[in-house]
Protein backbone atom coordinates (compact mmCIF):
# COMPACT_ATOMS: atom_id res chain seq x y z
CA UNK A 1 0.00 0.00 0.00
CA UNK A 2 2.79 2.35 0.97
CA UNK A 3 4.73 1.50 -2.15
CA UNK A 4 1.65 2.12 -4.23
CA UNK A 5 1.22 5.54 -2.65
CA UNK A 6 4.89 6.33 -3.29
CA UNK A 7 4.62 5.53 -6.99
CA UNK A 8 1.24 7.21 -7.36
CA UNK A 9 2.73 10.32 -5.73
CA UNK A 10 5.52 10.42 -8.26
CA UNK A 11 3.12 10.02 -11.17
CA UNK A 12 0.55 12.58 -10.02
CA UNK A 13 3.33 14.99 -9.11
CA UNK A 14 4.87 14.73 -12.55
CA UNK A 15 1.49 15.22 -14.20
CA UNK A 16 0.85 18.38 -12.19
CA UNK A 17 4.30 19.69 -13.15
CA UNK A 18 3.47 19.06 -16.81
CA UNK A 19 0.21 20.96 -16.42
CA UNK A 20 2.14 23.93 -15.03
CA UNK A 21 4.55 23.79 -17.90
CA UNK A 22 1.66 23.76 -20.36
CA UNK A 23 0.34 26.98 -18.85
CA UNK A 24 3.63 28.83 -19.15
CA UNK A 25 4.18 27.58 -22.67
CA UNK A 26 0.73 28.80 -23.68
CA UNK A 27 1.66 32.15 -22.14
CA UNK A 28 4.85 32.26 -24.10
CA UNK A 29 3.31 31.73 -27.50
CA UNK A 30 0.40 34.09 -26.88
CA UNK A 31 0.54 37.79 -27.61
CA UNK A 32 2.25 39.92 -24.94
CA UNK A 33 0.09 42.38 -23.04
CA UNK A 34 2.77 45.02 -23.08
CA UNK A 35 1.96 48.51 -24.28
CA UNK A 36 5.26 49.80 -25.53
CA UNK A 37 5.24 53.19 -23.92
CA UNK A 38 6.40 55.77 -25.11
CA UNK A 39 5.99 54.38 -28.61
CA UNK A 40 2.40 53.35 -27.88
CA UNK A 41 0.06 54.58 -25.18
CA UNK A 42 -2.15 52.72 -22.79
CA UNK A 43 -5.55 54.32 -22.18
CA UNK A 44 -5.76 56.42 -19.05
CA UNK A 45 -8.87 56.03 -16.90
CA UNK A 46 -11.47 58.73 -17.49
CA UNK A 47 -11.28 59.85 -13.88
CA UNK A 48 -7.50 59.94 -13.81
CA UNK A 49 -6.15 62.64 -11.50
CA UNK A 50 -3.04 64.47 -12.58
CA UNK A 51 -1.95 67.67 -10.85
CA UNK A 52 -4.65 70.37 -10.79
CA UNK A 53 -4.83 72.94 -13.55
CA UNK A 54 -6.55 76.28 -13.92
CA UNK A 55 -9.43 76.62 -16.36
CA UNK A 56 -9.83 79.75 -18.46
CA UNK A 57 -12.94 81.85 -18.74
CA UNK A 58 -14.55 81.25 -22.16
CA UNK A 59 -15.21 84.92 -22.91
CA UNK A 60 -12.12 86.70 -21.74
CA UNK A 61 -9.55 83.97 -21.63
CA UNK A 62 -8.58 85.13 -18.16
CA UNK A 63 -8.31 82.57 -15.39
CA UNK A 64 -11.66 81.72 -13.85
CA UNK A 65 -10.23 82.01 -10.37
CA UNK A 66 -11.23 85.08 -8.38
CA UNK A 67 -8.80 84.39 -5.59
CA UNK A 68 -11.28 83.65 -2.83
CA UNK A 69 -8.70 81.35 -1.25
CA UNK A 70 -11.07 78.56 -0.28
CA UNK A 71 -8.88 76.01 -2.02
CA UNK A 72 -5.81 77.16 -0.11
CA UNK A 73 -7.75 77.02 3.15
CA UNK A 74 -9.18 73.55 2.64
CA UNK A 75 -5.96 71.94 1.33
CA UNK A 76 -4.75 69.54 4.03
CA UNK A 77 -1.16 69.77 2.89
CA UNK A 78 -1.13 73.53 2.30
CA UNK A 79 0.21 73.27 -1.21
CA UNK A 80 -1.70 76.15 -2.80
CA UNK A 81 -0.74 79.81 -2.75
CA UNK A 82 -3.27 82.25 -4.29
CA UNK A 83 -3.10 85.99 -4.70
CA UNK A 84 -5.59 88.13 -6.58
CA UNK A 85 -6.16 91.78 -7.47
CA UNK A 86 -9.02 93.81 -8.82
CA UNK A 87 -8.49 95.01 -12.32
CA UNK A 88 -9.53 98.66 -12.68
CA UNK A 89 -12.75 98.18 -14.61
CA UNK A 90 -14.21 95.14 -12.91
CA UNK A 91 -15.79 94.26 -9.60
CA UNK A 92 -14.41 90.76 -9.13
CA UNK A 93 -10.82 89.96 -8.30
CA UNK A 94 -8.70 87.93 -10.71
CA UNK A 95 -5.84 85.66 -9.66
CA UNK A 96 -2.38 87.02 -10.31
CA UNK A 97 -0.47 84.23 -8.65
CA UNK A 98 -1.55 80.66 -8.28
CA UNK A 99 1.29 78.39 -7.19
CA UNK A 100 0.98 74.68 -6.55
CA UNK A 101 3.54 72.72 -4.57
CA UNK A 102 2.90 69.43 -6.33
CA UNK A 103 5.51 67.60 -4.26
CA UNK A 104 3.22 67.83 -1.24
CA UNK A 105 -0.09 67.25 -2.97
CA UNK A 106 -1.75 63.88 -2.50
CA UNK A 107 -4.45 64.47 -5.10
CA UNK A 108 -7.34 64.34 -2.63
CA UNK A 109 -9.34 66.74 -4.81
CA UNK A 110 -10.79 68.89 -2.01
CA UNK A 111 -9.63 72.05 -3.82
CA UNK A 112 -11.49 71.05 -6.99
CA UNK A 113 -14.65 70.29 -5.06
CA UNK A 114 -14.61 73.41 -2.96
CA UNK A 115 -13.90 75.91 -5.70
CA UNK A 116 -16.97 78.19 -6.05
CA UNK A 117 -15.92 79.32 -9.52
CA UNK A 118 -15.29 75.77 -10.81
CA UNK A 119 -11.93 77.08 -11.88
CA UNK A 120 -9.89 74.00 -11.04
CA UNK A 121 -9.72 70.62 -12.78
CA UNK A 122 -7.38 67.66 -12.83
CA UNK A 123 -4.90 67.63 -15.67
CA UNK A 124 -3.92 64.55 -17.62
CA UNK A 125 -0.17 64.91 -17.12
CA UNK A 126 0.66 61.34 -16.27
CA UNK A 127 4.37 61.05 -16.91
CA UNK A 128 6.06 63.84 -15.00
CA UNK A 129 9.73 63.45 -14.16
CA UNK A 130 12.52 65.94 -13.79
CA UNK A 131 16.05 66.43 -12.64
CA UNK A 132 15.24 68.83 -9.79
CA UNK A 133 12.38 68.93 -7.36
CA UNK A 134 12.14 72.73 -7.63
CA UNK A 135 10.30 72.39 -10.93
CA UNK A 136 7.46 70.77 -9.08
CA UNK A 137 7.68 72.70 -5.83
CA UNK A 138 6.33 75.87 -7.42
CA UNK A 139 4.21 75.03 -10.41
CA UNK A 140 2.69 78.18 -11.85
CA UNK A 141 -0.83 77.25 -12.88
CA UNK A 142 -1.48 80.60 -14.54
CA UNK A 143 1.17 79.96 -17.15
CA UNK A 144 -0.25 80.06 -20.65
CA UNK A 145 -3.42 81.87 -19.63
CA UNK A 146 -4.22 85.49 -20.54
CA UNK A 147 -4.05 88.03 -17.79
CA UNK A 148 -5.75 91.39 -17.36
CA UNK A 149 -2.64 92.76 -15.69
CA UNK A 150 -0.29 92.84 -18.63
CA UNK A 151 0.69 96.44 -18.79
Amino acid at each position, binding site marked *: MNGYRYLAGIVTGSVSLLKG*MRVTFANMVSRPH*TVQWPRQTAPLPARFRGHIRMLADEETGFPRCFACGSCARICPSACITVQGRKPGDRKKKVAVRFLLDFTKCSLCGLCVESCPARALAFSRDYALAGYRDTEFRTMDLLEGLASPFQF
Partner: protein
Amino acid sequence: MSISPVTIVCYLLGISAVVGLNAVILVWLERKVAGHMHFRYGPMEVGPHGLLQTLADGIKLLGKQFLVPDAADRPLFLLAPVVSLVPIFVAMVPLPLGETLQAWELNIGLLLVVALGLLNTLGILLAGWGSNNKYALLGGSRAVAQILAYKIPLLLCILTIIMMAGSYSLRQIALAQKDGWYILYQPLLFIIYIVTITLETNRSPFDFSEAESELVAGFHIEYSAMGFSLFFLAEYSYMFIAAALASILFLGGWQGPFLPGPVWSLLKLYGIIFLLMWFRWTFPRLRIDQMLHLGWKILLPLALVNFLVTAGVLAL
Protein backbone atom coordinates in the same frame (compact mmCIF):
# COMPACT_ATOMS: atom_id res chain seq x y z
CA MET B 1 51.54 14.20 -25.47
CA SER B 2 52.18 15.29 -29.03
CA ILE B 3 50.02 18.38 -29.03
CA SER B 4 51.88 21.50 -29.97
CA PRO B 5 51.44 24.66 -27.89
CA VAL B 6 50.01 26.47 -30.91
CA THR B 7 47.14 24.01 -31.05
CA ILE B 8 46.55 24.43 -27.33
CA VAL B 9 46.38 28.19 -27.71
CA CYS B 10 43.95 27.79 -30.62
CA TYR B 11 41.76 25.49 -28.53
CA LEU B 12 41.80 27.93 -25.64
CA LEU B 13 40.78 30.78 -27.91
CA GLY B 14 38.03 28.69 -29.45
CA ILE B 15 36.71 27.62 -26.06
CA SER B 16 36.82 31.20 -24.80
CA ALA B 17 34.81 32.27 -27.82
CA VAL B 18 32.26 29.52 -27.15
CA VAL B 19 32.01 30.47 -23.46
CA GLY B 20 31.56 34.17 -24.21
CA LEU B 21 29.15 33.82 -27.12
CA ASN B 22 27.12 31.20 -25.32
CA ALA B 23 26.70 33.46 -22.27
CA VAL B 24 25.70 36.42 -24.45
CA ILE B 25 23.10 34.37 -26.29
CA LEU B 26 21.79 32.57 -23.23
CA VAL B 27 21.33 35.69 -21.09
CA TRP B 28 19.40 37.34 -23.90
CA LEU B 29 17.38 34.18 -24.49
CA GLU B 30 16.63 33.81 -20.81
CA ARG B 31 15.30 37.35 -20.55
CA LYS B 32 13.23 36.93 -23.70
CA VAL B 33 11.81 33.60 -22.53
CA ALA B 34 11.07 35.04 -19.10
CA GLY B 35 9.41 38.06 -20.69
CA HIS B 36 7.22 36.11 -23.03
CA MET B 37 6.18 33.71 -20.30
CA HIS B 38 5.03 36.76 -18.33
CA PHE B 39 3.14 38.22 -21.34
CA ARG B 40 5.96 40.75 -21.70
CA TYR B 41 8.49 41.33 -24.45
CA GLY B 42 11.71 41.35 -22.49
CA PRO B 43 14.58 43.47 -23.86
CA MET B 44 13.42 45.38 -26.91
CA GLU B 45 15.14 48.73 -27.18
CA VAL B 46 18.87 47.90 -27.19
CA GLY B 47 19.51 46.68 -30.68
CA PRO B 48 16.84 44.89 -32.73
CA HIS B 49 14.68 42.98 -30.24
CA GLY B 50 17.24 43.70 -27.55
CA LEU B 51 19.97 41.60 -29.14
CA LEU B 52 22.69 43.91 -27.85
CA GLN B 53 21.30 43.92 -24.33
CA THR B 54 23.83 41.46 -22.93
CA LEU B 55 26.66 43.38 -24.55
CA ALA B 56 25.50 46.56 -22.82
CA ASP B 57 25.25 44.69 -19.52
CA GLY B 58 28.73 43.27 -19.96
CA ILE B 59 30.35 46.60 -20.79
CA LYS B 60 28.54 48.22 -17.91
CA LEU B 61 29.75 45.54 -15.50
CA LEU B 62 33.30 46.07 -16.81
CA GLY B 63 33.06 49.74 -15.90
CA LYS B 64 31.71 49.25 -12.42
CA GLN B 65 33.60 49.39 -9.19
CA PHE B 66 34.75 46.05 -7.81
CA LEU B 67 34.21 46.07 -4.08
CA VAL B 68 35.98 43.79 -1.66
CA PRO B 69 34.38 43.98 1.76
CA ASP B 70 36.76 44.85 4.60
CA ALA B 71 35.82 41.80 6.60
CA ALA B 72 36.11 39.41 3.66
CA ASP B 73 38.79 36.77 3.43
CA ARG B 74 40.60 38.58 0.65
CA PRO B 75 42.50 35.77 -1.15
CA LEU B 76 39.56 33.38 -1.01
CA PHE B 77 37.17 36.12 -2.11
CA LEU B 78 39.27 36.91 -5.17
CA LEU B 79 39.95 33.26 -5.97
CA ALA B 80 36.33 32.07 -5.91
CA PRO B 81 35.07 33.35 -9.31
CA VAL B 82 38.23 32.05 -10.97
CA VAL B 83 37.84 28.63 -9.34
CA SER B 84 34.30 28.34 -10.61
CA LEU B 85 35.23 29.47 -14.14
CA VAL B 86 38.51 27.62 -14.85
CA PRO B 87 37.22 23.98 -14.85
CA ILE B 88 34.93 24.93 -17.74
CA PHE B 89 37.89 25.44 -20.03
CA VAL B 90 39.05 21.89 -19.36
CA ALA B 91 35.57 20.35 -19.35
CA MET B 92 34.81 21.72 -22.81
CA VAL B 93 37.84 20.02 -24.34
CA PRO B 94 36.40 16.52 -24.90
CA LEU B 95 32.89 17.64 -25.94
CA PRO B 96 32.16 16.57 -29.51
CA LEU B 97 29.84 19.05 -31.18
CA GLY B 98 30.17 17.51 -34.61
CA GLU B 99 31.74 14.71 -36.60
CA THR B 100 35.05 16.53 -36.60
CA LEU B 101 34.29 19.44 -34.26
CA GLN B 102 35.99 18.21 -31.14
CA ALA B 103 39.01 19.68 -29.44
CA TRP B 104 40.46 16.43 -28.23
CA GLU B 105 39.13 12.90 -28.44
CA LEU B 106 39.76 11.50 -24.98
CA ASN B 107 38.94 7.93 -24.07
CA ILE B 108 37.74 8.99 -20.62
CA GLY B 109 36.02 12.18 -21.81
CA LEU B 110 32.73 11.56 -20.02
CA LEU B 111 34.41 11.02 -16.66
CA LEU B 112 36.48 14.17 -17.10
CA VAL B 113 33.44 16.31 -17.84
CA VAL B 114 31.49 14.92 -14.90
CA ALA B 115 34.42 15.24 -12.48
CA LEU B 116 35.03 18.86 -13.45
CA GLY B 117 31.34 19.65 -13.36
CA LEU B 118 31.38 18.76 -9.70
CA LEU B 119 34.05 21.39 -9.02
CA ASN B 120 31.49 24.16 -9.46
CA THR B 121 30.37 23.61 -5.88
CA LEU B 122 33.90 24.29 -4.69
CA GLY B 123 33.78 27.78 -6.20
CA ILE B 124 30.43 28.43 -4.57
CA LEU B 125 31.69 27.25 -1.19
CA LEU B 126 34.80 29.40 -1.58
CA ALA B 127 32.68 32.45 -2.40
CA GLY B 128 30.34 31.70 0.46
CA TRP B 129 33.12 31.49 2.98
CA GLY B 130 35.32 34.22 1.55
CA SER B 131 32.56 36.82 1.56
CA ASN B 132 32.25 36.59 5.33
CA ASN B 133 28.54 37.20 5.07
CA LYS B 134 25.92 35.05 6.75
CA TYR B 135 23.75 34.76 3.65
CA ALA B 136 26.73 33.88 1.49
CA LEU B 137 27.84 31.21 3.95
CA LEU B 138 24.33 29.76 4.06
CA GLY B 139 24.32 29.68 0.27
CA GLY B 140 27.65 27.88 0.21
CA SER B 141 26.61 25.26 2.74
CA ARG B 142 23.36 24.71 0.88
CA ALA B 143 25.29 24.10 -2.32
CA VAL B 144 27.30 21.43 -0.51
CA ALA B 145 24.15 19.78 0.84
CA GLN B 146 22.75 19.87 -2.66
CA ILE B 147 25.73 18.18 -4.30
CA LEU B 148 25.39 15.27 -1.85
CA ALA B 149 21.78 14.82 -2.90
CA TYR B 150 22.16 14.86 -6.67
CA LYS B 151 25.58 13.37 -7.26
CA ILE B 152 24.74 9.71 -6.78
CA PRO B 153 21.68 9.69 -9.09
CA LEU B 154 23.73 11.63 -11.64
CA LEU B 155 26.56 9.12 -11.53
CA LEU B 156 24.08 6.23 -11.73
CA CYS B 157 22.55 7.77 -14.86
CA ILE B 158 25.97 8.08 -16.40
CA LEU B 159 26.91 4.55 -15.38
CA THR B 160 23.83 3.16 -17.09
CA ILE B 161 24.74 4.96 -20.29
CA ILE B 162 28.35 3.79 -20.06
CA MET B 163 27.10 0.26 -19.63
CA MET B 164 24.89 0.51 -22.71
CA ALA B 165 27.53 2.12 -24.91
CA GLY B 166 30.48 0.20 -23.49
CA SER B 167 32.77 3.21 -23.55
CA TYR B 168 33.77 6.32 -21.61
CA SER B 169 34.46 8.23 -24.77
CA LEU B 170 31.79 10.79 -25.61
CA ARG B 171 32.39 10.25 -29.28
CA GLN B 172 31.90 6.49 -29.01
CA ILE B 173 28.75 6.99 -26.95
CA ALA B 174 27.29 9.26 -29.60
CA LEU B 175 28.27 6.87 -32.35
CA ALA B 176 26.66 3.98 -30.49
CA GLN B 177 23.31 5.71 -30.96
CA LYS B 178 23.42 5.60 -34.71
CA ASP B 179 20.39 3.32 -34.93
CA GLY B 180 18.37 4.60 -32.01
CA TRP B 181 18.80 7.38 -29.53
CA TYR B 182 19.08 6.26 -25.92
CA ILE B 183 16.12 8.45 -24.97
CA LEU B 184 13.93 5.87 -26.73
CA TYR B 185 15.31 3.05 -24.58
CA GLN B 186 15.67 5.05 -21.39
CA PRO B 187 12.95 7.72 -21.12
CA LEU B 188 12.86 7.49 -17.33
CA LEU B 189 16.61 7.88 -17.12
CA PHE B 190 16.41 10.96 -19.33
CA ILE B 191 13.92 12.57 -16.94
CA ILE B 192 16.13 11.72 -13.94
CA TYR B 193 19.12 13.14 -15.77
CA ILE B 194 17.32 16.39 -16.62
CA VAL B 195 16.32 16.81 -12.97
CA THR B 196 19.86 16.17 -11.79
CA ILE B 197 21.37 18.67 -14.22
CA THR B 198 18.85 21.24 -13.04
CA LEU B 199 20.23 20.55 -9.58
CA GLU B 200 23.79 20.62 -10.84
CA THR B 201 23.50 23.94 -12.60
CA ASN B 202 21.83 25.52 -9.57
CA ARG B 203 18.80 26.64 -11.45
CA SER B 204 15.30 27.23 -10.20
CA PRO B 205 13.41 25.29 -8.81
CA PHE B 206 16.65 24.17 -7.16
CA ASP B 207 18.51 27.49 -6.88
CA PHE B 208 18.99 27.11 -3.14
CA SER B 209 22.44 28.62 -3.04
CA GLU B 210 21.29 31.95 -4.45
CA ALA B 211 17.65 31.91 -3.37
CA GLU B 212 16.71 35.57 -3.76
CA SER B 213 13.71 35.50 -1.48
CA GLU B 214 15.56 33.79 1.36
CA LEU B 215 19.26 34.54 1.03
CA VAL B 216 19.12 37.88 -0.85
CA ALA B 217 21.57 36.67 -3.51
CA GLY B 218 23.20 33.74 -1.79
CA PHE B 219 26.82 33.01 -2.43
CA HIS B 220 27.43 35.97 -4.76
CA ILE B 221 25.85 38.53 -2.48
CA GLU B 222 29.08 40.48 -2.00
CA TYR B 223 30.29 40.27 -5.58
CA SER B 224 29.96 43.35 -7.73
CA ALA B 225 31.02 44.07 -11.30
CA MET B 226 33.45 41.54 -12.79
CA GLY B 227 33.33 39.06 -9.92
CA PHE B 228 29.60 38.76 -10.41
CA SER B 229 29.88 38.51 -14.17
CA LEU B 230 32.44 35.72 -13.88
CA PHE B 231 29.97 33.77 -11.75
CA PHE B 232 27.31 34.50 -14.32
CA LEU B 233 29.57 33.30 -17.11
CA ALA B 234 30.35 30.14 -15.15
CA GLU B 235 26.69 29.43 -14.49
CA TYR B 236 25.72 29.71 -18.14
CA SER B 237 28.75 27.73 -19.28
CA TYR B 238 27.87 24.92 -16.88
CA MET B 239 24.41 24.98 -18.41
CA PHE B 240 26.00 24.65 -21.83
CA ILE B 241 28.15 21.72 -20.72
CA ALA B 242 25.31 19.93 -18.95
CA ALA B 243 23.00 20.35 -21.95
CA ALA B 244 25.71 19.22 -24.34
CA LEU B 245 26.25 16.11 -22.22
CA ALA B 246 22.52 15.43 -22.22
CA SER B 247 22.34 15.77 -25.98
CA ILE B 248 25.31 13.43 -26.42
CA LEU B 249 24.19 10.85 -23.88
CA PHE B 250 20.53 10.66 -24.84
CA LEU B 251 19.92 12.36 -28.17
CA GLY B 252 22.70 11.03 -30.33
CA GLY B 253 24.90 14.14 -30.30
CA TRP B 254 25.49 15.58 -33.73
CA GLN B 255 23.72 12.82 -35.63
CA GLY B 256 20.55 13.61 -37.49
CA PRO B 257 19.20 13.73 -41.00
CA PHE B 258 19.57 16.55 -43.57
CA LEU B 259 21.36 19.18 -41.48
CA PRO B 260 25.13 19.20 -40.84
CA GLY B 261 26.38 17.83 -37.53
CA PRO B 262 27.18 21.00 -35.56
CA VAL B 263 23.76 22.44 -36.38
CA TRP B 264 22.08 19.34 -35.03
CA SER B 265 24.12 19.36 -31.86
CA LEU B 266 23.46 23.04 -31.26
CA LEU B 267 19.75 22.51 -31.89
CA LYS B 268 19.54 19.67 -29.37
CA LEU B 269 21.70 21.53 -26.89
CA TYR B 270 19.68 24.72 -26.98
CA GLY B 271 16.50 22.68 -26.89
CA ILE B 272 17.58 21.23 -23.57
CA ILE B 273 18.66 24.64 -22.32
CA PHE B 274 15.24 25.96 -23.27
CA LEU B 275 13.76 23.14 -21.20
CA LEU B 276 15.81 24.30 -18.21
CA MET B 277 14.63 27.88 -18.74
CA TRP B 278 11.09 26.66 -19.03
CA PHE B 279 11.47 24.93 -15.63
CA ARG B 280 12.90 28.08 -14.14
CA TRP B 281 10.04 30.33 -15.12
CA THR B 282 7.36 27.79 -14.27
CA PHE B 283 8.18 26.15 -10.97
CA PRO B 284 8.52 27.81 -7.61
CA ARG B 285 11.56 26.99 -5.51
CA LEU B 286 11.36 23.89 -3.34
CA ARG B 287 12.12 23.82 0.34
CA ILE B 288 15.54 22.37 1.04
CA ASP B 289 14.12 19.30 2.81
CA GLN B 290 11.87 18.66 -0.18
CA MET B 291 14.94 18.78 -2.42
CA LEU B 292 16.74 16.26 -0.19
CA HIS B 293 13.64 14.08 -0.21
CA LEU B 294 13.56 14.25 -3.99
CA GLY B 295 17.24 13.44 -4.30
CA TRP B 296 17.54 10.63 -1.79
CA LYS B 297 14.10 9.04 -1.82
CA ILE B 298 12.92 9.43 -5.39
CA LEU B 299 15.79 10.02 -7.81
CA LEU B 300 18.24 7.62 -6.18
CA PRO B 301 15.91 4.55 -5.95
CA LEU B 302 14.54 5.16 -9.43
CA ALA B 303 18.02 5.50 -10.92
CA LEU B 304 19.19 2.41 -9.03
CA VAL B 305 16.24 0.29 -10.17
CA ASN B 306 16.71 1.52 -13.71
CA PHE B 307 20.41 0.68 -13.52
CA LEU B 308 19.77 -2.84 -12.28
CA VAL B 309 17.04 -3.52 -14.83
CA THR B 310 19.26 -2.27 -17.63
CA ALA B 311 22.10 -4.43 -16.39
CA GLY B 312 19.78 -7.45 -16.32
CA VAL B 313 18.46 -6.80 -19.82
CA LEU B 314 21.96 -6.29 -21.19
CA ALA B 315 23.21 -9.48 -19.54
CA LEU B 316 20.44 -11.59 -21.10
